[in-house]
């Protein structure tokens, strides 16, 4: 598999997952914003938090302007908190902002165009009609009347794409890199979400409705109800989203799936730095799952896992894509 193609596939997976997560988050926050009771909040699922989660993402390689763009967003937040409409618009249909759903889908479709010989025709058609449908939508009007339908469509289209991957794409290295991209993004988004929204240990009591809002924002409310007997308070919810291997959106599941994908793609996974690092992270998550919770250990764990994930991302780049990047420098 060509290194350049692998790189494109990896980022195609990331872009699509990012679009889907953004849609889920915005949908959840909309809901919490309208239904939630005003007053003290333990999980700070607010519009500023959303901007920090999504807008503060590091840009994809080759997107020079992206850095400035996201920095710009943060600067605005600091100066004057944005309201619901502005934030939602910025992150949904602003094609100038690199973090918006529209830009993610644009990029994914461009990558799909480059990869037309690698992905199946049906996958390409799903991407292309996703892009065309967003272009056809009067997004601004849809946002005013109720963004539910927009977010719903984004989620559906992403699910369609991944379903087609399952049904039509050859199980080869290309598929493994596509999946790896999707998984690492998923883990990353979940961690960002938890880091921003989960308060310090001292204020972590009760607040059931807020924890439910968090579950909704990642699309895991029903799974939690069925898997965990406890009431959805902050502690159990966070542990569920971090450690529960049976929930496909949890950090532990994503990391395990990422390890599987990279082992498939690598001819010698036993010598692959990212795979080795992932093995250790998986073991650590398992250990933490079995350790009873003590005070503010959760914050430390979240930070450590995020740091590890950044290192894994760097290792993946070094091991699989660096050879293509070298060519670009050479030219």
């Amino acid at each position, binding site marked *: *598999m*060509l*290194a*350049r*193609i*692998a790189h494109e596939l990896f980022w195609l997976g990331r872009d699509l997952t990012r679009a889907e997560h953004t849609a889920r988050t915005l949908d959840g926050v909309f809901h919490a914003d309208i239904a939630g009771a005003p007053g003290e909040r333990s999980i700070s699922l607010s519009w500023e938090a959303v901007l920090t989660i999504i807008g503060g993402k590091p840009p994809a390689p080759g997107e020079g302007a992206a850095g400035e763009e996201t920095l710009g967003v943060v600067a605005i937040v600091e100066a004057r908190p944005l309201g619901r409409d502005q934030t939602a618009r910025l992150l949904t249909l602003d094609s100038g902002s690199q973090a918006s759903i529209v830009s993610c889908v644009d990029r994914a479709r*461009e990558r799909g*165009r*480059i990869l*037309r*010989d*690698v992905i199946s*025709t049906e996958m*390409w*058609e799903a991407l*292309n*009609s996703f892009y*065309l449908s967003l272009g056809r939508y009067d997004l601004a009007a849809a946002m005013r009347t109720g963004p539910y339908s927009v977010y719903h469509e984004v989620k559906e289209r992403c699910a369609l794409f991944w379903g087609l991957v399952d049904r039509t794409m050859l199980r080869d*290295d290309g598929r493994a*890199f596509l999946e790896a991209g999707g998984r690492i993004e998923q883990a990353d988004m979940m961690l960002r979400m938890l880091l921003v929204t989960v308060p310090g240990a001292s204020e972590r009591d009760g607040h059931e409705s807020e924890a439910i809002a968090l579950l909704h924002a990642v699309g895991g409310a029903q799974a939690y109800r069925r898997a965990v007997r406890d009431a959805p308070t902050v502690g159990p919810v966070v542990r569920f989203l971090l450690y529960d291997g049976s929930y496909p959106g949890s950090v532990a599941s994503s990391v395990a799936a990422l390890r599987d994908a990279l082992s498939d*793609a*690598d*001819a010698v996974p036993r010598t692959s730095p990212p795979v080795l690092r992932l093995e250790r992270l998986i073991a650590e998550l398992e250990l933490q799952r079995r350790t009873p919770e003590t005070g503010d250990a959760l914050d430390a764990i979240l930070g450590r896992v995020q740091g590890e994930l950044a290192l894994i991302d760097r290792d993946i780049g070094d091991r*699989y*894509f660096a*050879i*293509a990047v070298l*060519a*670009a420098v*050479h*030219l």
Partner: protein
Amino acid sequence: MSTVGDGALQDYEVPAGSRDELIDADGSPLPHATKLLAALERLGPERLEAAGRRRDTIFMQQGITFEVPTGDGERRDRAWPLDLVPRVLTAAEWTAIKRGLAQRIRALNAFVDDVYHAHEIVRAGIVPWSLVVSRPQFARPVHGVRPPGGVYCHVSGCDLVRGGDGRWRVLEDNVRTPSGISYVIENRLAMTRLMPELFEGQRIRAVDHYPSLLLDALRAVAPGVDGEATVVLWTPGPMNSAYFEHAFLARQMGIELVEAGDLVVRDAVCYMRTTSGLQRVHTIYRRLDDDFIDPLEFRPDSLLGVPGLVRAYRAGTVAIANAVGTGVADDKAVYHYVPEMIRFYLSEEPILENVPTYLLTDKRLREHVLGRLHELVIKPTSESGGKGVFIGPQADAAQRERQTRLIEELPERFIAQELVHLSTVPTEAGDGRLAPRHVDLRPFAVFGEEIRIVPGGLTRVALSPGSMIVNSSQGGGSKDTWVLDDGESGDLAPGTLPAQRPPRLPDVRYGGWHGQAQQQQQ
């Protein structure tokens, strides 16, 4: 001039001087088109129009589009313009075309070999050497390099036209990187989905085996390998207007689509950069011109090239299709000599004629041409894609004046051709009605172990009334091209061919690079 009764063919008038391929002079369908036209008649204009709308939606969704520049400098995707009325050729007609093309391609291939080796045709006084070396596509760096089997023109697409007398003529040869085959296959697929009624009761030859023909040919020319040869398709990149086709072919053949950055030459061996390090490449099907492939040998400013590639090619470690330097054979000034080449190399009479062409270097001919400028077509040599073409009957006095000055300045840069009144085919004219529109034909041939030609080819059609410009960038469309399977193919059954075929060029053994490796050792 002819008119046909009622229905879809109401007021069907073939322009003077042209001949229609489906309707005869008194307005009734020709025998091979009766079934098709009856099916169209049953369908009626409304359903034809509705199918047209469905076609646009499907093509947009599948991304079968091409970019057209709009007025404000932006580029916009437009659905590929496929006309829903197919063009029909009989098996007998097709056999003649196929033989003519195979003959022509063999001659062109022999010419390329000759130009870079023995110069026999020059010694015989048929083609002047000064003309050959002055072609911009003449590639000095590959002098004396002979690829396996002596095949240079692995992929070719000649443009054919049919004049008012009903004879097929070659308008242009294209043995560099002809494009359009993906549209042939996509057109057929779309037609079977959109208009299944038209196919009823007809046997039409398939076109979708082209990718496997091509892959076989590319594998056949790979330099000696132990296992399976690695074949790649080299594209200039996603910004190229033919990128759709590059990706299409790579997908259909199941090979990697590479860009320049993916290829690297180490010690005269070509590799591609993969996730598990460098991997040897044996055959490159390249879709960019000679000028750009290697900055060390050709244009030094090319960013699309792979440094050292020509060195690897000369060393015989990598095959390039089409071979480097084939451009010299499809130059418009060299075109004039192709019938002579066929006589010289093959001792055969050309089956397909040239359009009468005049070289302007001869003073007497030049004066004759300048006097008839209002009737002729003037084309610059060494250009392609319809750039700089001057059409006499459509030019005004000022344009004629300017063209005369250009010719007198640099007569060797132009050729003059008689105007061919392109044949017409019924075409959907916007509201479901049928009207005659001018067409040409580009069949695609693949030359590996032998020459194979896909039945039919790309039919391009001028969509505005009376226009003879069929380029899709200038408002042209395309048609599905049917070759009927009516049992008169005249093909040899595979069983009747001898197991061992004689080599195509004297002293060239097929398969492998032995001959050349020995030459280099000497």
